[in-house]
């Protein structure tokens, strides 16, 4: 199979879905002329025309609000935020409109829209470097995906576009350049709500999200050399969330570490911990460990940024502590 980058996989998903379905439209700040801040959408306006690919004023609130309107009136808009952090600007439109209107209006509308959210700390400071998935896991009605591989980036985006619910699609900035095999089949889809077991093992369950997945796999490699075969699970989709996959793994291992780039308090790991308490307490042999962003704004200074971001060493240390 051919190998492409995560960024190319996203673009390929957009192209395929726009070709497949004329109701898919794409807009955002600088997505047309400039090709998007991370050059994901470059050349798409030439391919699909100004009606389907166009630039908007600098107002995330307006462009997400317009997407809600477009979605409930028959289009399938895909909008790009330059940084996932700008989701906070769109709060009312995302949380109260996109997330709730299908329910609030008794199913009279569907809200088939995708908001692409480049996430992750990458030397861009507190307002452009967050992984805010957990904030929106708290809101009903929103689908949330965080692909970690090029294949999932493509397959999940295509599923997201075809889904009749609003999807927040978190694409990690540091993953854009990563490469991997990606199917060319235009009907290749990765279903929402299905976790991937990236590596099998029985010593410990390491749940890793987004850019934490490649780090987790390196940790697993290192632990295997030390005789501990751990299981690495990539949830891929945070809503819907594949609880059975994690519970089954924990039944096997009894120990769990969650690695994520969200803030620790009420983060994804907190939710997983609570879920295990409710549904699988009797299988836990150790307290759950969370490797997450400490509850501080992400520093702009590079050294400090590296200090707070969960890295291989921190994940390794947490695993070792449970394996002791």
């Amino acid at each position, binding site marked *: 199979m051919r190998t492409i980058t995560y960024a190319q996989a996203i673009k390929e998903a957009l192209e395929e879905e726009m070709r497949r379905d004329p109701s898919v439209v794409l807009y955002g700040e600088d997505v047309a002329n400039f090709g998007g801040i991370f050059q994901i959408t470059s050349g798409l306006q030439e391919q699909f025309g100004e009606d389907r690919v166009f630039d908007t004023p600098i107002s995330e609130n307006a462009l997400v609000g317009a997407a809600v309107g477009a979605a409930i009136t028959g289009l399938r808009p895909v909008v790009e935020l330059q940084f996932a952090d700008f989701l906070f600007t769109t709060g009312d439109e995302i949380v109260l409109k996109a997330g709730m209107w299908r329910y609030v209006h008794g199913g009279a509308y569907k809200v088939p829209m995708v908001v692409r959210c480049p996430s992750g700390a990458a030397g861009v400071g507190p307002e452009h470097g967050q992984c805010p998935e957990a904030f929106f896991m708290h809101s009903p009605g929103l689908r949330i995906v965080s692909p970690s591989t090029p294949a999932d980036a493509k397959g999940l985006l295509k599923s997201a576009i075809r889904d009749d619910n609003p999807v927040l699609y978190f694409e990690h900035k540091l993953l854009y350049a990563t490469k991997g095999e990606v199917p060319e089949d235009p009907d290749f889809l990765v279903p929402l709500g299905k976790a991937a077991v990236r590596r099998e093992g029985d010593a410990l369950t390491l749940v890793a999200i987004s850019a934490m997945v490649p780090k987790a796999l390196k940790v697993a490699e290192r632990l295997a050399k030390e005789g501990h075969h751990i299981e690495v699970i990539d949830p891929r989709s945070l809503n819907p969330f594949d609880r059975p996959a994690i519970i089954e793994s924990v039944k096997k291992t009894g120990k769990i570490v969650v690695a994520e780039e969200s803030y620790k308090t009420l983060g994804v790991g907190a939710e997983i911990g609570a879920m295990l308490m409710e549904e699988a307490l*009797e299988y836990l042999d150790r307290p759950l460990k969370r490797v997450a962003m400490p509850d501080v704004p992400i520093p702009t200074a590079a050294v400090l940024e590296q200090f707070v971001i969960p890295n291989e060493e921190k994940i390794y240390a947490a695993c070792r502590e449970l394996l002791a």
Partner: protein
Amino acid sequence: MPLMIQMPKLGHTMTEGTVLKWHKHAGDQVREGETVLTVETDKAEIEIESPAAGVLARVLAGEGVVVAVGLPLGEIVRAGESASEAAPATAFNKEASSSAQNSGALGAASTSTLNASAGKRVAASPRAKRLAAERGLDLSSVAGSGPDGLITEDDVRKISAAEVHAAPSIAPAAAARPLVASRREKLTRIQAVGARNLAASWNAIPHFVQMVRVDMSRALAARSAIKGSGSRVTITDVILAATVIALKENPRVNASYSEGERLLYDEINLGIAVDTPDGLLVPVIHDAGALDVAGISARAAELAERARSKQLRPADMENATFTVSNLGAAGIENGTPVIFAPQAALMFVGAIHDQVLAIDGRAEVRPAMQLAIAYDHRALDGASASHFTTRVKALLEAPDFLGLNATANPAAVTRHREVTIDAIGDSLKTRVTYGSLGWTLSAEDASAPDPVSSFLGALGSCLLMSLRVAARARNLTVGKSSVTARANEKGHLREIQVELQVETGAGDDKLHRLVEVAERGCHIRAMIRDEIAVALKVTRI
């Protein structure tokens, strides 16, 4: 589904047992309830029966293998079933026999048994608890290896597989000429467990011992008197009965120490140490407080016999609250015993032999013995323990509790005309106590006489005794005599009919005179109000 025969949990502290003998072989037919194998537990050998009729399809643990409680020993397949495929047919034997290296795990765990006493929270992971529950293991004695001593799944798996082994060689490496044992005797399981538990008791309990010398002359005399009446009561039974009375009066001795608390027990469960060819066994007389000396004697004899013939059941050895260890028969005069945790005390009984005692300023030779009572200093201080120690001595030196006071020693009679009456629970029953004797009255069913019947008994007895006293005074011969006393069946007492039957050669006049005198002299009769009609009739036998 095929049925698994599992290592049973036959006592609170049992974590494993040894397969002693298979009476059936794989492939043999078995009937329901038929003995399939014998296992040895901490305390006894137990025969395990087949839970159903069928075929012993597989033997999963060979003879001599130590198996954790709850793990499968064999598989019974009923007619029409096939054997399960999942069960590890041979793996288990291997695991158990190759676990010699693990002996440290259980050894270390067991020493902490006593620290983890009743009510203490067991810090175990939920997963470890689940596994322990599946395997029927008790985690209170397990030392956890996880953070802050948390008991983990691995810890549970280790105790499941661990095997008890005797201590390794003691030869010191540096010795020029190492001391080599000429042979090694493997302890029996009972001895090995006893060794472990005693070491744990000795390590955990701050012992102190109180010793007293007891003049046994009256106890021996009383016991002879009882024996003369055909009873099989031994002097040990007398000592046990005295101990029970002293325990009733000193409830803090019938207790356990537990993490800053004293656990007091209403029930007195008396452990009696019995020497058997396999080692020391301690069967228990349960609820000894409810038994008199004859009851204790019968129970003790039964238990001792069962211990010697290896017929003790685990329940016979459970829940002792106090133990008596009698080495008197072996000629030992005194010793410093070790308490069986979690009991708070243990009494050592020495040999009885003639000793010179100072009695009222004179040297007298009397049969005497020594008692050495070990106490847990966490549960009792010396002063409160001394009340118990001296009470046992006093009871044995004046054994009124045997009910032989009047003949054995008039000076020691329980006070006349004083009884205590206690209500039994919230029932319409009472317990009347007279010295060490007692009886029950009931106003709700026929399980005991009601107070009026009891009164009629007192009246009739009193009349009869008065009659005999009067007869003596008149030199009249009275042979057999009995009384029937009857009152109106319901409601207030209105009329009483008393029929005296007397065997006598005295003429009618003399007899009627005698009855008149008896009626006048009877204190009970004198108490009856005038409006209650008392009809006294006398007939000859």
